[in-house]
């Protein structure tokens, strides 16, 4: 579903934000993407979603090359950006309708999905109000609904739990599990190792643009016996 092969991104011709990184996310997998601040996580996600062009390497989403088949690749992605503050002058329902139009969702599908998602995230009463009046958490919930309204095969989520209340956070995690069970791919960045531990089939750890680990949590723990995930992470990223 996601193929990220030998990708490099250099800023200002000097700073290697991502250095020849390769990984793959298959259908049915939930993959956690973690690393210290400034390790290249956001740069990687921006390249995956077509926001940033890579300097070298190949990126494929759902079989489509992000450079050559940009529109098809982007249509396959449900992306939640790190900031939910966009188009705040629109009402929640106007924003969702606009996004559904962008992703060409049929009338029936959008009504069904918006109803279902808004109820799961307890946002039904707020949708007819301008997003300007929403709290940060409500905006984040709306972004989650918008990212999922076209039922994309690939979810790419940048710190999706930020600002969500415990119930919404739980709902999102449940939805990630349900989505992966249907054979889709979920790729999300996080700093919360407990979330990665409980949710992910696989973790990818990155530091200073270099891939440190790509594999299952069981495998990682077996390499570092009697250590907590937190200790393993600190040991890997500090040395």
């Amino acid at each position, binding site marked *: 579903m996601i193929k990220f092969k030998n990708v490099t991104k250099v800023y*200002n011709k000097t700073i290697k934000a991502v250095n020849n990184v390769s990984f793959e996310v298959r259908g049915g997998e939930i993959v956690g993407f973690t690393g210290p601040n400034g390790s290249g996580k956001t740069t990687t996600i*921006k390249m995956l*979603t*077509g*926001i*940033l*062009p890579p300097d070298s390497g190949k990126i494929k989403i759902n079989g489509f090359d992000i450079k050559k088949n*940009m*529109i*098809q690749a*982007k*249509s396959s*992605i449900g*992306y939640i*950006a790190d*900031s939910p*503050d*966009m*188009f*705040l*002058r*629109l009402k929640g*329902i*106007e924003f*969702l*309708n*606009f996004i*559904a*139009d*962008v*992703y*060409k*969702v*049929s*009338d029936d599908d*959008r*009504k069904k999905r*918006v*109803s279902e998602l*808004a109820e799961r995230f307890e946002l*039904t*009463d*707020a*949708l*007819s*109000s*301008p997003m*300007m*009046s*929403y709290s940060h958490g409500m905006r984040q919930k709306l972004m989650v609904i918008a990212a999922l309204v076209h039922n994309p095969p690939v979810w790419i989520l940048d710190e999706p739990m930020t600002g969500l209340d415990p119930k919404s956070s739980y709902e999102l995690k449940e939805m990630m599990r349900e989505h992966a069970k249907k054979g889709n791919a979920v790729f999300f960045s996080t700093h919360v190792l407990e979330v990665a531990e409980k949710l992910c089939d696989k973790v990818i750890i990155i530091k200073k643009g270099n891939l440190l680990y790509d594999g299952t949590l069981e495998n990682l723990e077996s390499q570092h016996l009697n250590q907590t995930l937190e200790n393993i992470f600190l040991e890997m990223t500090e040395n």
Partner: protein
Amino acid sequence: MRLYLKFVHILIKSVEFSDDEKKRKKIFNTAMALIVLLGIMLPVSFFVGIVVYAITGGLTQLGGQEEGIALFLHLISAFSFVFGLNVIYNVFYFSADVESILPLPLKPYQIVSAKFTAALISENMMQFMIVLAAMAGYIFAMGLPIWSWLVAVLCMLTLPIIPMVYCGIIALVTMYFTHFIKNKDRVNKLTGVLTLFIILGIVLFCGNMSDFSTDSITQAIASDNSLLNVMNIILPHIRFIVSGVSGDILGIVIYLAINIVAVVVFLLLAELMYFKGVIGISGAGSKKQRSVDFSKTVKGLKTRAVSLSYFKKEILILVRTPAYFMNCVVINLVWPILLYLVYALQGPDNFLGKFFKDLSNGNATAGLIFIFCASGISVLITSANSIASSSITREGSHFAFMKYIPIDFMTQINIKASVAILISGLGMIIYVIIAGILFSLNGMFVLFTCLISLFSVIFASYFGVYMDSINPKLVWDDEVNALRGNYNIFYNMALSILLVAVLCVIAYLLFSFVGVSEIVLEIGLMIALVVFCGISYLLCKTRATKNIYETAA
């Protein structure tokens, strides 16, 4: 003092135009700044200097030599006040940095003084040159000694202080005493309306003159001192700097003393009132959420074509954001009313009246001028309303959205340009038709002028989007900042007008000196505009799409 300077420096840096790392863009920005400086600022300053020189000469004979420069400085101060009011409210109370600054162990006067200085500098850079030019005109007309230039420089640097202090005091007092004003949207709407009224006042003043020559301005000043008398009460310091530049040392001392007292009073008020005014205010999002039956809300979800949906989104944001509505939309509605007011106030026997009479009679030269004016005004209004030239800038922190949605960049550019074409073009065409009816113009002539206007608007819209794509100002914390200090808008306006002006000059030379008929020239203008449209469209297709792709989000 060091803390104050550091604070001012940080505040100015935080609203500066985004500094792109790419050498190509730096060269572009430098080149554009030079074009604006040499092509607009210097000629405008030179023109101002000449006008003040001529008026001062005329008024000297009538015994009121200081009145021309005084009125000019009052006018400049009025502009500082008009444009400063909105800026001061936003900088003091609604900018995103307020939430970070308030928890710092700083006294209110320290915050307000730094914010005031930063706003003063960034708002008045362009004004400095014009004030100096006006002073130069006065110095030359009066034959004043060389040290008068020092006073002129002092005036240039300090003139905006008192109008901005007035803005600051109004903001402090209203935010302290009233709850109504504690809303960003309301402030933007109110200051926008106030700006319109002040511009209307200037138009009414202009309407009293028989034409726009320096003689009639001189006559207007000499015959009626009431405006100057009122302004002297509101801005008492100006008469002292005017006498100071003529050699009155006491005048300079009093001028400085008035400025110092005004700043001290302002900072004392800030110490007393700022915290109470700023704590607990909300941005624009203080509207209560309406509870609507969810099933009805969901029924509103209907499929639309992607382009139409994107187009609607752009229009809704333009219309619902007061800063955009006042600066980008209202301007299209206001200018013809102002122009008509000038015409109506002057009566049918003056310049505009004579021109339209010639036009109604089918005068070829008047027809040619009308068509060229329609083209020029279309380009001017389309670039001045900045709908196109801030279309990418307005995306701000969510610029990435343009890049991750499955809509190709050229489609998005077409939609953004279409919004500008609709709002600017519709306005222009409606006004051309109204002019046609009012002055009983030939139907074909009106249709042709509408087409010329439309092509001018299309050209300026695509060119505006292209210009904005080169280096969009994506870092801003409120919508006013997206437009304020955005040089793309200014560069686009300068280049678009320059291109159309070159066309008009060539056509006029061909008409006057070579004897080319007006029909040929009008068709020639149409062809040239179609070519311009094609070039700007291609620039968008080949360059702007690449610029968007390469711009970091």
